[in-house]
């Protein structure tokens, strides 16, 4: 098999390795012999552990990607940034107000944004990062929550920001503020919790717990299924 593969040179932290061109950066590092400890998590684009910065030989342009979601390219120089020392404020969510002033209290640096858009350009999730910071500045918490929703908190935005904003921590504060203080609580959920706490289902549940396998099979096979 391996002899059929098209191979390319990559440079992991400057050191050259020959790897198959079909691999992701993560697979290529493992192929090259790295036992990853940092810089590898879910291996599926959800956890943000494998933020990677790279440049192609001869080109000045720095590019980024999640190592598990980006294919290697010929003459790729790469390094991972698996950790970024970001500041996070501590707060009691229930006592907060969903306002711009509240966000500014915890993250005043958002007003230092110079509009360079480096955060948006670097985001491996293609989020409009600068835009959601602008929403936060203006107190449009709902829009900030929506726009930042697909964030995997990899930290690349913060690594590039000349104003030293930690965008992803602003995003999660906005989403939690929005969900707790702006979206109405689910009425049906509240009623069901009250019913359970009042013991409404206790008898029915005890019967099921004590039912024989045969009874359960019958009940299961004949249960009505919602369209």
């Amino acid at each position, binding site marked *: 098999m391996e002899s059929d593969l098209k191979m390319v040179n990559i440079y992991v932290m400057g050191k050259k390795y020959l790897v198959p061109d079909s691999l992701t950066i993560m697979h290529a590092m493992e192929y090259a012999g790295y036992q990853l400890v940092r810089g590898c*998590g879910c291996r599926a*684009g959800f*956890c943000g552990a494998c933020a990677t910065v790279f440049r192609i030989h001869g080109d000045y342009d720095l590019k980024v990607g999640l190592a598990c979601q980006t294919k290697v390219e010929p003459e790729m120089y790469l390094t991972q940034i698996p950790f970024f020392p970001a500041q996070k404020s501590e707060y009691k969510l229930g006592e907060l107000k969903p306002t711009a002033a509240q966000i500014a209290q915890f993250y005043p640096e958002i007003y230092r944004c110079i509009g360079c858009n480096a955060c948006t350009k670097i985001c491996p999730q293609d989020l409009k990062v600068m835009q959601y910071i602008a929403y936060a500045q203006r107190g449009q918490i709902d829009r900030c929550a929506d726009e930042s929703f697909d964030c995997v908190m990899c930290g690349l935005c913060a690594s590039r920001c000349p104003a030293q904003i930690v965008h992803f921590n602003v995003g999660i504060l906005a989403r939690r503020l929005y969900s707790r203080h702006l*979206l109405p609580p689910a009425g049906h959920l509240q009623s069901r919790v009250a019913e359970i706490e009042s013991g409404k289902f206790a008898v029915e549940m005890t019967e099921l717990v004590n039912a024989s396998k045969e009874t359960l099979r019958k009940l299961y096979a004949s249960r009505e299924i919602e369209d």
Partner: protein
Amino acid sequence: MPYTPQLRELVKQVEASRAERIKKGPFRRMTMDERDEVLKNFHPDFIEASMRPLSVGVNKGDRVPHEFADLIEARSRIEGLGFDLENFAYDVDVLVVGGGGAGASAALIAQEQGADVLIVTKLRFGDANTVMAQGGIQAADKEGDSPAKHYLDVMGGGRFENVPELVSALTLDAPLALKWLEDLGAMFDKFPDGTMKSIHGGGTSRKRMHSARDYSGAEIMRTLRDEVRNRAIRVIEFCAAVELLLDEEGKVGGAVLYNMETGEYEIVRAKSVILAVGGSGRLEYQGFPTTNHYGATADGLVMGYRAGAELAFMHTMQYHPTGAAYPPQIIGLLITEKVRGLGAEPVNIDGEQFVYHLETRDVAAAAIIREIKERRKGIAVPGGMIGVWLDSPMIDLLYGAGTVARELPAMVRQFARFGVDIINEPMLVYPALHYQNGGLLIDENGLTNVQNLYAVGEVAGGIHGGNRLMGNSLLDIVVFGRRAGAHAGAAAKEIKVKKLSLNYLQAFQRELEAVGADTGGRVSPILLPRYTHRMTSA
């Protein structure tokens, strides 16, 4: 890479039958007998040669997969190392091992009880299967639904083998868990009046799958993690537990920690230990590609079993019917069941549907394997895999243009990165190893049979019987994480840890020698899979 010209030709068959399939309505569901038959003949759990009986320990004689038995029949990582067990680096009330959703839930609630809590996790805090759970979380919270209906669905899905008391706890606590998450500010999909959006999952009788787009687990995890940080609970990352410590009365009393970066060992004394370390998908049972997180290497099962905790249902694994079979870069990637929940049908090479789109996972996976192996109606994919189609474009026809983009942004993005447009092109799927249905047997408080040792999340067994339903894993990590946290937190005041010892470990190793088990130079827990110089699944 985009579909090849040959695959594009085959896509036309799927397109040709699409309108007719939609018009006809849903495919017929299997009868109970048909379900039993397809499982027996095609589900990987039923392949006898894939397992062997455990040679030692509490479950001696029970059949488990070879890959797992290999880790039990292995030497300890700390054999021959001398430790001063009285020289603790940490002395806490509750030690939580694992930084996923179960561990975070347990830690938050234990701390509320006044306990001093320490979380250790071998990767980053939040690196866990929790973040990868896309589809949703079940809870019977709507009119027309009830915990009893949820209970019946769980038992039927689990082949009626589940521990009834655990299912009762799971389904009665479900709305409470969901409410807790809502109060913590997790951003669930809602209508403007606050009503939760909910859909079906495989094997549900009511639409009780709640989601946060297709980042449901990620949203729950980042919310819990943010809250743990708000409450300044101590978390040590890149720090694994490698063995438990028992005191002279046989109660758990701490653990041996291993710094993943420096290689140093440290001792932690704790009044109780909550194992929340996840499952074992990275053992890649029977060679299946896995949807699992990098760290899913059975560490908790190994540590717990050596310390005397009983296992349950370790002969059953969940193969998710829809792992990616193409593009090659993402083989084994989880394709959320929400895709089927929204109506996408499994279709063979001739464009024919062959199974109801919302069968339970075990049945759907077995039906896909049958379609390929017996009926030879699979689609051969460059790279050697054979898959079937999952007709994602029909979702927009059913619910209106834009639905796929809105409801499945992660899926759209992950396929687009490698040249496949799931809004307009069907996906190629094959079952992937997804979940360990069993684990360390627990009671309603998450306690194992070893005193003061808890197991929550995927490492625990009994809740899901022989097969877990979609949306009940995100649920069980929160329900049993909270229960264990409450119980351990409250119990801490009463517990006095006696002199710590590793005698149990020596006894276990002697038992291995006595039965002549071949440990083959293996050392466990393995902590990380070894993928160096090997082509791997995602």
